[in-house]
């Protein structure tokens, strides 16, 4: 990268199904935490980018209500809506441009205050053709899962192993929402939401927020001894109409290629030490393995069967428990970046993977991964 940018501090709240604090209070909490870590005052903040969503908040122009609570008063600022990863990318571009030497990036959703996932994601669909038939997040994902199983003989057991891994990993993460030791059988026996997806295959619905501070090379060196450098990034969009898409070959491959090219990564499985990927449904983690180039097409199931992606595997995926464990919708993308940064800093506590030099963060939003982002971080 021409202009080097580093993550110098990260903060998140303890995620939960219903936090007893309002949007302004938790935004203030994470902002203050980040500033304290580097000994900065609000006046020294360069620019501020936040991510939230009108529908996922029930307040239009969603950021305006917590704007001043996150130190943005009289600061140059903006919002990248719907996905915290986009907020990260926008903050990154602002620092890369040289117009700012630091950027606070923040993302927030309180799922406890809004309608159900099904209601909100039915509103993703066009109003005339796909909305009336009830297309929503889980039914879209179920069609993708069915296609994946049919084309590559991926099994429900393999998907269930992702749940066992991620919810088990979450036991080591003090910020995780849903954490438990469960068996493949328990996952398979949980209530069917949309065949073949069962209740335990689905992400949590959480309250939470996350913030991090980006700094230019010069500024980063003044603020911290352990900067995490952004090595590569890419993001990509697919068609809208569900039937127009190849659900097993979306934009992720392209987003990953761009990020890998920038970071000089040619063999992701060998060169990446840990990955935090966004898996709103368990089988998607397997599919994303393939599109991230961790294995070839149809081999995602084998990766989990062979223990490659468990905590002590060759490439641990979602030591934090991922989105299955913690899902404050818009914030989840920024949490992936935060967790990937903690791993490089060596500050991931009990969920730390030893000796991490390079980490990957991924995020997605929209039906069955209509939009993907990939970020590579390193020492």
């Amino acid at each position, binding site marked *: 990268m021409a*202009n080097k940018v580093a993550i110098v501090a990260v903060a998140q709240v303890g995620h939960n199904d219903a936090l007893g604090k309002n949007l302004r209070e938790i935004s203030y909490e994470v902002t203050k935490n980040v500033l304290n870590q580097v000994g900065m005052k609000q006046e020294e903040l360069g620019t501020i980018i936040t991510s939230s969503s009108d529908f996922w908040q029930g307040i239009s122009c969603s950021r305006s209500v917590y*704007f001043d609570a996150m130190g943005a008063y009289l600061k140059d600022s903006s919002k990248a*809506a719907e996905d915290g990863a986009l907020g990260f990318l*926008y903050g990154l571009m602002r620092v890369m*441009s040289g117009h700012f030497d630091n950027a606070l990036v923040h993302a927030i959703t309180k799922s406890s205050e809004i309608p159900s996932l099904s209601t909100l994601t039915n509103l993703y669909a066009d109003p005339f053709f796909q909305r009336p038939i009830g297309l929503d997040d889980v039914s879209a994902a179920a069609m993708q899962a069915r296609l994946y199983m049919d084309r590559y003989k991926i099994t429900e057991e393999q998907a269930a192993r992702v749940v066992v891994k991620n919810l088990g990993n979450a036991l080591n993460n003090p910020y995780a929402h849903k954490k438990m030791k469960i068996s493949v059988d328990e996952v398979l026996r949980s209530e069917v939401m949309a065949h073949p997806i069962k209740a335990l295959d689905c992400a949590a619905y959480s309250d939470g927020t996350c913030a991090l501070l980006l700094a230019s090379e010069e500024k980063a060196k003044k603020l911290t001894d352990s900067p995490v450098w952004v090595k590569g990034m890419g993001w*990509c969009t697919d*068609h809208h109409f569900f039937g127009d898409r190849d659900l097993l070959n979306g934009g992720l491959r392209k987003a990953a290629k761009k990020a890998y090219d920038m970071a000089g990564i040619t063999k992701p499985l060998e060169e990446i030490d840990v990955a935090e990927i966004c898996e709103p449904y368990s089988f998607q983690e397997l599919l994303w393995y393939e599109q991230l180039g961790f294995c070839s097409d149809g081999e995602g199931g084998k990766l989990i069967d062979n223990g490659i992606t468990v905590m002590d595997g060759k490439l641990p995926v979602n030591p934090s428990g991922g989105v299955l464990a913690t899902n404050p919708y818009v914030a989840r993308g920024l949490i992936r970046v935060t967790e990937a940064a903690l791993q490089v800093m060596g500050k991931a506590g009990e969920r730390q993977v030893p000796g991490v030099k390079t980490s990957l963060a991924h995020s997605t939003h929209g039906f069955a991964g209509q939009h993907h982002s990939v970020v590579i971080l390193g020492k």
Partner: protein
Amino acid sequence: MARAVAIIGVGQTKHGRRDDVNYPELVYEAVKAALEDAGISPEDVEAVVHGTMPSAMEGINAAHLYLSDAVTAFGKPLMRVATCGSTGMSLAHSAFYHVASGLFDIVMAVGSEKMLENDPQGTMTTVADPFFQRPFIGGAPGVFSMQGIQYAHRYNLPEERVREAAARISVNHHDNALDNPYAHIRTKITVEDVLKSRIIAYPTRLMDVCPSSDGACAVIFVSEEKAKKFSKKPAWVKGLSYVGDEHFFGDSDKVVWESAIIAAQKAYKMAGIRSPQKELDVAEIYNPFTYQELIYYECFGFCDRGEACKLVEDGVVLRGGELPCDPSGGVLCTNPIGATGLIRVGEAALQVTGRADDRQIPGAKTALSHAMGGADQFNGIMIVGSEL
């Protein structure tokens, strides 16, 4: 040295009630026009930024995903930016930073709204916080009318004088809109008509208020290298800033309005402008309500505090004056909200490149564009010029 960024293409729809097209078709109309204006194909566009006003306006969650094909974003990086009324300006800023970062050379910003398919004021009310202010803030006019009253009282100005100045702004802008083939409201009106139109929320009358429109705008931002390759006459981004203040109405002064003042000061500094009234040739100010425009003249340093009415009375900011404002007819005549701020940027770019046809201000070289958003809370500015 920061990377230079230019505008090489501007496209907008014919704004108004557009029952003849659906939402993606409406958006594509602007996208196609911008691509043709820039002389590039969809494949040349490396990344897209799209935005609308609150998602509830069209009842579509994550409209960027719904419109991904209409904005030619298939297989490309796409970002949704939404900051209420200032969305269009935030889109321009986002596209600017996409290019300025060095990651992209050609980026398209697209703003859109199909307001007449929904209840705009019902949606607008949900911008206020749910507990304290939403129960009594009925849409946009309530907030902006309070601001208008606050202005008159602050400087002890006779309300008749302020009303008359506001009415003259309205007449000027409606006249301007007659020269703009894209404008929504194109009607010849008189000062008398404005002063006698029905009250919406005192002191604001019907003709002091913008319409709800269907419409879209697309603007193409490029690096210096691409600007020289694709365009004989690009508009260069000279300065930009976007500043916000407190959420709760009542916490901040909306007359000596810090966010507007500081946004302007920062953008002027970047553009090297010391005396705005002399150095700017034209301004596209975001004025959904006439009274607000008076406040902006002062916040942007076009005149001293309390002197905005005089600026209108002397004709400085009217057509033919020293610093004509809103030659397009402005927001007062066209307001598809998600596009509105971007239309300001696009119109400013057309002015400094001498391409604004019948609404051209002769010899315009430097133009200010502006938008306001949030809960009467955010102000964003982009200054464009004809020279690098």
